[in-house]
């Protein structure tokens, strides 16, 4: 099925040269100018790109170094990259006593109606501050890859947000699961790659600027922590 009936052979070849990156800088720029105004040309380019992309099938995936992801997120979500972040540093540097971690409150929780999910096993955590100024119930459903959140005590201070973190067993540092909304009830989706790590992992909530941590690691005080246990 050809879609290029409106185009002459010169354009067909020119778009092919562009797709292959064979044009010199000036011709490339001139072509991109045309592309902006010409939907037919864009369609032709799409056909070329779709046709050629299978040449990349033979390129084996290579896992990039783990630090790259944090570097990208730091570039995008502003502020400098923090390297060599460790579990100990997280709690130590923020002036939160390490003993705090030992006082993690773990409980079997009863879910609210919203959080009720009848099918499959679920995992629970009570993410609580030592003084219980902040208490959040979390119910993880591995099948759906979602955490139902019920914040039963405490809230973010004005102009700040609460950010949820997963500290997986043996992981070098916390991974953000996102900023919690201002509502008490919420559903947080867990990336596929992190779902296994949820089980037996630890959840933590930190105090962060609006929009969440700009660095990919907690920047404010860690307010509450809780282990994920099976229900």
């Amino acid at each position, binding site marked *: 099925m050809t879609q290029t009936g409106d185009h002459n052979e010169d354009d067909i070849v020119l778009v092919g040269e562009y797709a292959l990156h064979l044009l010199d800088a000036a011709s490339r720029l001139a072509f991109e100018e045309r592309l902006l105004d010409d939907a037919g040309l864009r369609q032709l380019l*799409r056909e070329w790109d*779709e*046709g050629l992309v299978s*040449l990349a099938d033979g390129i*084996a995936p290579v896992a990039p170094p783990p630090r790259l992801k944090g570097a*990208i997120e730091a570039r995008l979500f502003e502020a400098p990259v923090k390297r060599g972040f460790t579990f100990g540093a997280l709690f130590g540097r923020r002036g939160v006593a390490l003993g705090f971690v030992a006082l993690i409150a773990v409980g079997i929780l009863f879910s609210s109606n919203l959080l009720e999910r009848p099918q499959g096993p679920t995992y629970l955590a009570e993410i609580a501050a030592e003084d219980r100024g902040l208490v959040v119930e979390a119910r993880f459903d591995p099948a759906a890859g979602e955490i139902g959140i019920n914040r039963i005590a405490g809230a973010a201070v004005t102009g700040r947000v609460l950010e949820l973190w997963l500290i997986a067993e043996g992981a070098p540092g916390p991974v953000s699961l*996102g900023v919690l909304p201002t509502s008490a009830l919420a559903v947080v989706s867990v990336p596929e790659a992190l779902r296994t790590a949820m089980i037996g992992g630890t959840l933590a909530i930190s105090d962060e600027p609006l929009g969440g941590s700009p660095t990919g690691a907690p920047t404010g005080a860690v307010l509450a922590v809780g282990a994920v246990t099976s229900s």
Partner: protein
Amino acid sequence: MTTTSDIETYIVRTGLGDRTAFSSLYDATSAKLFGVCLRVLNNRAEAEDALQDVYVRIWQKANSYAVNGYSPMTWLITLARNLSIDRLRARKAPAKNIEDVLDLADSGPTPEAAAVQKSERAQIDGCLDELDTVHASAVRGAYLEGDTYQDLADRAGVPLNTMRTWLRRSLAKLKDCLSR
């Protein structure tokens, strides 16, 4: 296992500013795209920088994805390849270690990529088979290694204009075959 439609969803949600979806997209696709950057640049440090640029660009451009009509992996791979070639052109090309390049190619596609792309793959291969061998390998060289007309002419041992004429004629045939 991440499917093509998962990846599509991640891109669309990334376009809405969903950082979790962006994170999932990175986890699902960064190894393939890093492979593409490495293949073109043949230099690990540069490929790492290129990969960062790629995901920054993905974040910025994902909101236009839904309307551009590309299949998700084509969009991602094309973006990774284009940025890598831009970077390649920005430096004076060092000699390539052809054995490294072959090593990367030899490991083959992941089973899922192979399954998704199988029919297309057969098509591009079939179409390249219809071309003169030298022309077909020029197309591969341009696509996979970012070769310029000059590189291709040097490799084939022909004048630049000859290579240009050959390849332009072959591209017309190739497009015709791909549209069949």
